């Protein structure tokens, strides 16, 4: 970033004297080096060379505002949080300088100043703590872990379980394989529309005259009520499909009357 600084200014208007440009560069470098406005304030506070607890917040505010002014004069773009801090410090400065307005409530200038001092002290304390932390002996640098750790061999013992119920169910399954079916899906008693469609296409050639759809049911599906129902439904759906395709005609003389079909164009 510092390298790009001068370039940016060289592109700018040439009226800036060299000295000002150098100052601007220095300032840019400085702003870049700060970790935000609080960090800058802390650096400024250190220049007062007093205990942070006795830092003059008013003086600090003035220093900061002067810095911002200078940056503005040099047309340095400052991040928004620097400007927010400047506005707040300007407000604080006015509070500190003017006699307290009894009409106005809210914290006094002194309270706000004390808080800022606290924040600075806390930030500095954390910096010191961080430095002490990093100064400790560190693993992999000062002390070391076992170089040849021995892996714990995991012995996985698999224990198989089966209950008497499992055993009996298994046996029942085998002994009755032909008839024993889990009653989830009874495929045997289900006639699909695809099956019916397939079947009817094959039979269509014979349907020159009107035929009752019921007589089209396949063998073994006419008596058992469950099978009859599913076969009928499948064939009905299939006949609708065939009618839609223009292959057959359907007629029903009355509600619930038998449904008749015949091949289209048979006559």
């Amino acid at each position, binding site marked *: 970033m510092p390298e790009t600084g001068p370039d940016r200014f060289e592109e700018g208007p040439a009226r800036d004297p060299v000295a000002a440009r150098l100052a601007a560069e220095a300032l840019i470098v400085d702003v870049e080096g700060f970790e935000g406005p609080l960090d800058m304030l802390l650096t400024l506070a250190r220049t007062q060379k007093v205990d942070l607890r006795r830092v003059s917040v008013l003086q600090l505010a003035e220093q900061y505002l002067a810095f911002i002014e200078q940056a503005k004069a040099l047309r340095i773009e400052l991040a928004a949080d620097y400007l927010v801090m400047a506005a707040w410090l300007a407000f604080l400065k006015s509070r500190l300088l003017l006699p307290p307005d009894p009409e106005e409530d809210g914290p006094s200038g002194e309270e706000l100043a004390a808080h800022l001092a606290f924040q600075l002290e806390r930030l500095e304390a954390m910096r010191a703590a961080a430095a002490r932390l990093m100064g400790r002996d560190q693993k992999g640098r000062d002390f070391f872990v076992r170089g040849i750790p021995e892996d*714990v061999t995991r012995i996985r013992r698999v224990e*198989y379980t*089966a209950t008497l119920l*499992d*055993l*009996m169910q*298994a046996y029942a399954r085998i*002994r009755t394989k032909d008839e024993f079916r889990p009653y989830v899906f009874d495929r045997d008693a289900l006639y699909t529309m695809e099956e019916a469609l397939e079947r009817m296409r094959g039979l269509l050639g014979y349907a020159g005259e009107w035929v009752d759809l019921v007589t089209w049911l396949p063998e073994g599906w006419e008596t058992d009520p469950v099978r009859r129902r599913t076969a009928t439904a499948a064939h009905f759906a299939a006949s609708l499909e065939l009618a839609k395709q223009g292959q057959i005609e359907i007629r029903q003389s009355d509600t619930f009357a038998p449904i008749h079909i015949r091949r289209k164009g048979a006559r």
Partner: protein
Amino acid sequence: MTDRERDQEDSLFEAPPMAEQERMVEAILFASAEPLRVADLNARMPHGCDAALALTHLARRYEGRGVRLVRVGESWAFRTAPDLGFLMQKETTELRKLSRAAIETLAIIAYHQPVTRAEIEEIRGVSVSRGTVDQLLELEWIRFGRRRMTPGRPVTYVVTEEFLDHFGLESARDLPGLKELRAAGLLDSRPMPGTSDEDESGEDGQAEMFEDES
């Protein structure tokens, strides 16, 4: 401590005291990712150190401890004491359901014992894999019975005491028959039209089988 300090002062440009050398060897060997030779140790320790001597001291210190200093070829390393090797294992038990093939095979053996592999296959309608039988043998739920006196003298399988114990049975004959299974709702109680007689006969066959045995 003052002794050591004096020692160190005396030997500002000499080798550290042997106790210190021992510590160094200990730390280096502990942290090293591989066994180290005496020469490696000497190379890493301050000038004038005698790693070989420090090693003998250190080895003595670890005698009878949970870890020991051992020589691996030309090199040295710390190793777990052999008698504590069992601590380096972690046993985990995993419960797993028996596969369908295994439970079916087991059921057939239980209901039809003594039974040959060919018979099991005939009843199940599929071949029985070697692994399935091995697994049941390993679980000690089945064992070999007497050979069948038929051509080829095939081995038979029977269930074990361990099996009875696991399933809480006094004898294999306590296994419920098909009728009881049906009564217990384990079988679809709605027989297919025209097929009801068939499984009845199966049941008979099974009863027969147990009678054969006695």
